[in-house]
């Protein structure tokens, strides 16, 4: 019998169990994560580097990349400001309906993206609540860029606020009070004390928010209208190329999104290393983030 020579410790698991669990999780990650990812890059490059570049540089794909960047450039800053304000309110003030506010912030997490998209369709679509009013004034929201921005906003609302609330709660208000007793104004206190003390959590939230804003498929798909070169974002472009039996081109665009995910992961790891030396309270909390990769599976 192996291991019988050493007296078993009360709270130590047997070595074979450790090994088994480790092997199981590694195998699982290999099969469900690494293999598909490697396959993605292999497929993308299957027709050579030149074809890869050409498919990325085609006019429609370039327009999809531009649109994705535009949507993210609008949604991420707005949600950052909203997230800061909401987290501030929740963490530093006592008011009635606080739990309700937190629940509302979480809502987009629990609503299926297709439903999120449909909600806006039922509001601003031609058959929707404001449809005829908008149509009479020739304002197009659904099947146009404004619709894409709106649903992306909705879907990415929780990211920044969710990251900041626990960090801000742990920080408390004493540092701000100290700044005030030292003569600092409200703005100086925010800029020099409040913001720096949450900066890593904030950055983490922004990165996750960005990954989701660029990678969102379901909600965007509902309100996009799939007009090639006009309302196709990158995830939608991937789907379209794939449906057109242009597999290698689809994988090429998908590889861009996958790289976005990888960069997000890298930055996240860096940020966690950054905060490791500091008090545990300011380490970012990992939340249900879905970067570009996960959307691919649905695109196929």
């Amino acid at each position: 019998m192996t291991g019988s020579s050493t007296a078993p410790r009360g709270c130590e698991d047997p070595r074979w169990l450790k090994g088994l669990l480790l092997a199981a999780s590694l195998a699982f990650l290999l099969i469900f994560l690494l293999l598909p990812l490697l396959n993605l890059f292999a497929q993308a490059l299957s027709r050579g580097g030149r074809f890869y570049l050409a498919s990325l540089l085609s006019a429609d794909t370039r327009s999809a990349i531009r649109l994705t960047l535009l949507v993210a450039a609008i949604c991420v800053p707005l949600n950052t400001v909203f997230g800061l304000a909401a987290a501030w309110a929740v963490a530093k003030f006592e008011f009635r309906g606080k739990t309700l506010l937190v629940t509302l912030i979480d809502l987009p997490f629990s609503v299926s993206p297709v439903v999120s998209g449909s909600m806006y369709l039922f509001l601003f679509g031609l058959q929707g609540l404001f449809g005829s009013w908008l149509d009479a004034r020739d304002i197009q929201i659904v099947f146009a860029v404004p619709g894409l921005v709106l649903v992306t906003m909705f879907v990415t609302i929780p990211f920044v606020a969710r990251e900041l609330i626990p960090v801000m709660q742990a920080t408390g208000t004493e540092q701000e009070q100290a700044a005030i007793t030292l003569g600092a104004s409200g703005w100086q206190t925010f800029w020099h004390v409040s913001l720096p003390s949450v900066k890593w959590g904030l950055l983490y939230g922004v990165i996750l928010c960005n990954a989701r804003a660029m990678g969102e498929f379901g909600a965007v798909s509902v309100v996009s209208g799939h007009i090639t070169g006009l309302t196709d974002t990158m995830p939608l472009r991937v789907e379209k190329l794939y449906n057109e039996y242009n597999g290698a081109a689809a994988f090429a665009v998908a590889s861009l999104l996958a790289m976005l995910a990888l960069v997000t992961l890298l930055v996240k790891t860096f940020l966690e290393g950054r905060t490791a030396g500091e008090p545990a309270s300011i380490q970012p909390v990992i939340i249900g983030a879905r970067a570009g990769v996960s959307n691919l599976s649905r695109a196929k």
Partner: protein
Amino acid sequence: MSIELKKVSKQYGRELAVEEVSFSVEDGELVALLGPSGCGKTTVLRMIAGLEQPTGGDIYIRAQRVNELSVQERNIGFVFQSYALFKTMNVYKNIAFGLKIKKWKKADIVTRVGDLLRLIGLEGLDHRYPHQLSGGQRQRVAMARALAPRPNVLLLDEPFGAVDAKIRQELREWLVRLHHDLSITTVFVTHDQEEAMEVANRIVIFSKGRVEQIGTPREVYDHPASEFVARFIGVMNVFELEVRRGMARLHELEFPAAGLADGQRVRIGFRPYAVQVSPDLDHYRYRAVLRHTFFLGVMLRVELQLASGLTIRGRMTKEEYEHLGLADDQEVSFQIRQYRVLGNENTPLPPEISTAGDTAPVRRESPVDEPPASDKESVGSSEKLP
């Protein structure tokens, strides 16, 4: 006069947290606001700072009424219980913060911070971050940060609450030296009577939002204004007795109660050092067993248990204890030399009544020679009958 409070009150909803508190702090004084938790002392400190608004009364700093002034305009230094150091700034930037806000010249800031680092004995640690410092060091940085912009007054909220006993002692001594050197008007809040006694020039004792007594440590110790004060600073045994046949009695204890009707209840208080102990069982009128001896340094506290189970706290110097050859579980005799008949807890204390001549020779009488030392353990040591 540096700080003056005139009938300052603070009401939260319907609850009166601070009720018509008046006291003043002279220039360069070091004053302690002392009281049990929830007595309003921290609220008073925060109202002086401007972090809370009084709902009544006036606050003056250097003869200027500051009720309407914002925190920033009051030019105070405030040290928080948890230090509240800026955790994203190193020691240097923490101390320099107030100076930058006040737009000091760069060269002046460098000099000032250097001076303060020397003052708090942390030269060379200016690039450390708060989480890389010990509790005592953080405390000193918080102090330096508060002192940097040369405030009119320094306000400290439980400044030594978050460090261990040994560091606490060092910091207390350091604060006294610092205050002596800078002679900046300082007000600090504490719930620790020993700390207040040791550090402060004067003590303001709070109970339930009101000032119970203001005085020097010795005044407060020797002449507590009320039973609350006497018990809070830990210098009183309290018993409730019943009058029978002209004497107030509780088990073995009896005190003369002339003029009181039988059945009436009387509360008696006496100080631990009014208890005289002898190993000679016939020396004093009561007998007891010395249950425990608490060594508190120069002073000792003894717990005497009577046959009925009553426990009485006594105090004596180490020399006396050794001279008498006392030991735990030894049978001894004792007497109570002085006592007071108590009224309400917050009513003024009546004068002490001497029982000298009750029995036997009286020892050297020197209660005032006693240092007002650590009596922390006997806070709330009094016993009452249900």
